[in-house]
């Protein structure tokens, strides 16, 4: 077995002598007999490094990953290209292996990165304050709810059905704890139903939750929808996709009080869903209610510039039951990855990438909608993902495409039974025109073969 330890028999003997006991066993005597295990763990014996490697390779190769399949699946996590410098930097021991920066004098690296990250996210969302990152998107949405309750003293959430189903579900899970009622507002032609929303938001509402682009890919008119929240003194909480903010009006310019979202598209690999990070930005007034770590600038005893964890009186380790959140270990390394990716994209590249997504998405949408047996689920403007209806069983269509090495999209049925024939297709800069054309072919063939009606027959000869 692999040990990663140093103690030899000699070490052990000498150390025990120093402690003054005869065996390690003696040290374990403080565990009362009845709760001792008294048998070896029923786990396999340890392995050498190359054996573990082979074992993991074998498992990994039983997954159809985006390097071996053309991946049009999105639904919140996207197959963006992670530049090589992201790996090189995040794998540096100096970033990979420290703990949370509790000793700022020897943690300036991590703290400065947090400060830079906060600046970048604040720029992206056009909100003045950003935290250093939370777990991932959906739980970050739930955390925003917790802030809203504290900030408004109210406990009713109005949530658009366009918000990611995972976020809505997680919000509900958390709400069962901190106590809040959820009201959902439906979707009409791709967009949040504005009229229903205006009705739903009232003086008891702590927060209105929107997402743009919403889960069906539609770009929402956040400003217009958010007016109801402003009117009733509810917070406007907007979930957004950080890869679209080079093109879309940022939440801060749409009246959002809080912007949150899934950080994965920024420098984080798919990893079957994690680790990634959630971002959390807000207006100045909420700074002392923000969840999680925040780095701040200051000076040292000699006047040198430096960074520290700040406003720690919000946090669990200082405030305990009065903390604004319970989070401790978060996702610092993932936030670093995002920061490096953003620096690599740069101001121009970030915008260009957003535009590239819009253009290719428009092409793909037109191309697929033109297929027999395929139509748009909605015609609302989209940025990087769009929803289709296919005239054939979606699961089977996806299997057919998979046989041709294409992951064609995300089936909407489980989470939106009303769109049982719905398919969500996502585009990244890795998805070339040729691949989109391949998808069109595969999807077209699949729908033709599996279609419930045969279009040919409909057309009079």
């Amino acid at each position, binding site marked *: 077995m692999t040990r990663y330890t140093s103690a030899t028999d000699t070490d052990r003997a000498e150390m025990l002598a120093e402690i003054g006991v005869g065996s390690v066993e003696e040290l374990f005597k403080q565990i009362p007999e009845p709760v001792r295990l008294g048998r070896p763990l029923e*786990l396999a014996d340890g392995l050498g490094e190359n054996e573990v490697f082979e074992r993991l390779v074998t498992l990994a190769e039983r997954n159809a990953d985006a390097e071996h399949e053309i991946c049009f*699946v999105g639904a919140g996590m996207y197959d963006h290209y992670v530049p090589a410098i992201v790996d090189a930097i995040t794998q540096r021991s100096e970033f990979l292996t420290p703990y949370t920066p509790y000793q700022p004098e020897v943690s300036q690296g991590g703290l400065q990165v947090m400060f830079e990250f906060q600046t970048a996210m604040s720029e992206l969302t056009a909100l003045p304050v950003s935290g250093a990152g939370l777990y991932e998107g959906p739980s970050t949405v739930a955390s925003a709810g917790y802030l809203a309750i504290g900030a408004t003293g109210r406990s009713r959430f109005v949530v658009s059905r366009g918000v990611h189903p995972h976020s809505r579900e997680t919000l509900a899970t958390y709400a069962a704890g901190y106590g809040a009622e959820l009201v959902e507002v439906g979707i009409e032609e791709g967009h949040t139903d504005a009229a229903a929303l205006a009705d739903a938001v009232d003086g008891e509402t702590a927060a209105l939750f929107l997402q743009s682009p919403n889960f069906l890919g539609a770009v929402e008119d956040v400003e217009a929808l958010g007016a109801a929240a402003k009117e009733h003194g509810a917070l406007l909480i907007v979930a957004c996709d950080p890869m679209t903010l080079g093109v879309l009006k940022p939440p801060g310019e749409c009246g959002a009080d809080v912007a949150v979202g899934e950080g994965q598209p920024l420098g984080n690999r798919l990893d079957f869903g994690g680790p990634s990070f959630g971002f959390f930005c807000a207006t100045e007034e909420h700074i002392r209610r923000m969840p999680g770590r925040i780095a701040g600038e200051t000076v040292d005893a000699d006047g040198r510039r430096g960074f520290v964890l700040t406003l720690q009186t919000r946090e669990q380790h200082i405030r305990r039951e009065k903390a604004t959140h319970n989070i401790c270990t978060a996702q610092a390394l993932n936030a670093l990855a995002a920061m490096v990716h953003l620096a*690599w994209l740069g*101001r121009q590249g970030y915008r260009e990438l957003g535009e590239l997504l819009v253009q290719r998405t428009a092409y793909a949408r037109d191309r697929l909608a033109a297929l027999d047996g395929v139509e748009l689920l909605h015609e609302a403007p989209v940025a990087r993902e769009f929803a289709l209806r296919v005239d054939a069983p979606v699961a089977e269509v996806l299997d057919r495409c998979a046989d041709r090495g294409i992951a064609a999209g995300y089936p909407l049925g489980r989470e939106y039974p009303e769109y049982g024939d719905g398919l969500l297709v996502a585009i990244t800069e890795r998805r070339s025109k040729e691949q989109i054309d391949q998808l069109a072919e595969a999807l077209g063939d699949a729908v033709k073969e599996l279609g419930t009606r045969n279009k040919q027959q409909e057309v009079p000869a």
Partner: protein
Amino acid sequence: MTLPTITETPMQADRAKTIFEKSVAGRRAAVLPDAGVPERPLEELIPERLLRSEPPHLPEISEPEIVRHYNRVSRRNFDLDTGFYPLGSCTMKHNPRLNERVAALPGHARLHPAQDPKRAQGALELMWQLQETLAEICGLPHVSLQPSAGSHGELAGLLLTRAYHADRGEQRHQVLTPDTAHGTNPASVTMAGYEVVKVATNERGGVEIDDLRAKASDEVACLMLTNPNTLGLFDENIAEIAEIVHGVGGTLYYDGANLNAIMGHSRPGDMGFDIVHVNLHKSFSQPHGGGGPGGGPIAVSDRIEPFLPRPQVMRRDGTNGAEPLFDLDFERPKSIGRLRGFQGNFGVFVRSYAYILSLGGDGLSEASETAVLNANYLLARLKKGRAGRYLPVAFDRHCMHEFVLSGKPAKTELGVQTLDIAKRLLDFGFHPPTVYFPLLVDEALMVEPTETEPRENLDAFADAIDRILEEAESDPEIAKQAPYTTPVRRLDEVKANRQPVVRQALA
């Protein structure tokens, strides 16, 4: 002019400059592919009022300069791969690079979380195997890997408790936590909508049974406990404690931060706990990453199982000798629901699973033994020196994997506080222990060496502590003004809090 003398270290002289300050308009690193499709004016595709007018001020900088920036910045960190990091309660054990390698395999790293389970069998099997393994280690049969870290696991555990009681038609409002509890425990309690009730600590560092008995009632939903607790001591009364809490219908929650002490020796499930969280980033070697990512799987007993988060990884036996099939179970009617997006921090699971495969059952139990040996050895070494006088151990017993010293005598007799000692340790090239926690101990220093440290490092640390106390005997100012050699010296936290500057002002 005289010859230069060193007044600052090279790193001190290199003042912090952010990447934004290195930005020059027009520079760039990334080159994006051509769209390759017929392009249309943006406004035709998205109404202009929904568009951004001006791109955000991201840095404009070439790739070589980005690399240099972050390489240089990285060196301003102290890290585990450089030196001894005895941060109590954090289990700073070695982070094997093998785990990074296997996590980076494209079959893991580029697997979309919404991939059809049929085409993600390897990933689901890995998760299932990890669940089984954690169940065996914790002595509890059911595991959910969803929680993203310890505190997320705590919240999950409390929501499970709530669901469990609700299912029985009960409403309970209190959660008991000992005064030695970690800050996340009470914070989680509040977040889960409960009220914290503190339980006192007895003279052996364990739960004060009488106090517990007094506070146990049908209002109590749960008792949260770490065992060994944050003093590094195993609570010998655990069976009785469990009986009391179960007696009033409460659940027992095990904060697994200290699991590294007992792997293969004792199991929370066998102690009577109903719910356990495991910190994959502590006991199971996931690197801490400067503050995450981590993983906080929970293991639970049969009666809690129906409420576990959705989706749950499941295994279906193959029919007629076929391979088993792994799937995600979304149909869990009593589930508390999701705790997060998708299935959890899968990349962390890969690392921890690789770690467990490497050590095996025997290796895990030996790891705990060595962790306990190392802690007791370091404690013995310290006791023999000046620390024995100025930094006495808070509860004088053999410890488990960590121990807590009190800096009270150092403060009163020498005039140096725990903080000063911690800062002076930095000059000696050591990361300080956890300080001022647990709150119960005055001027606490909480020391956890972990099993992966060789004895020489423990000796060197003990010697450094002794030197620092020796210095303090002759001049306490040395420690009080420390550190001297770190990239920056003591930082003004008050200023940072008063006028928070939490982002860079940009044009």
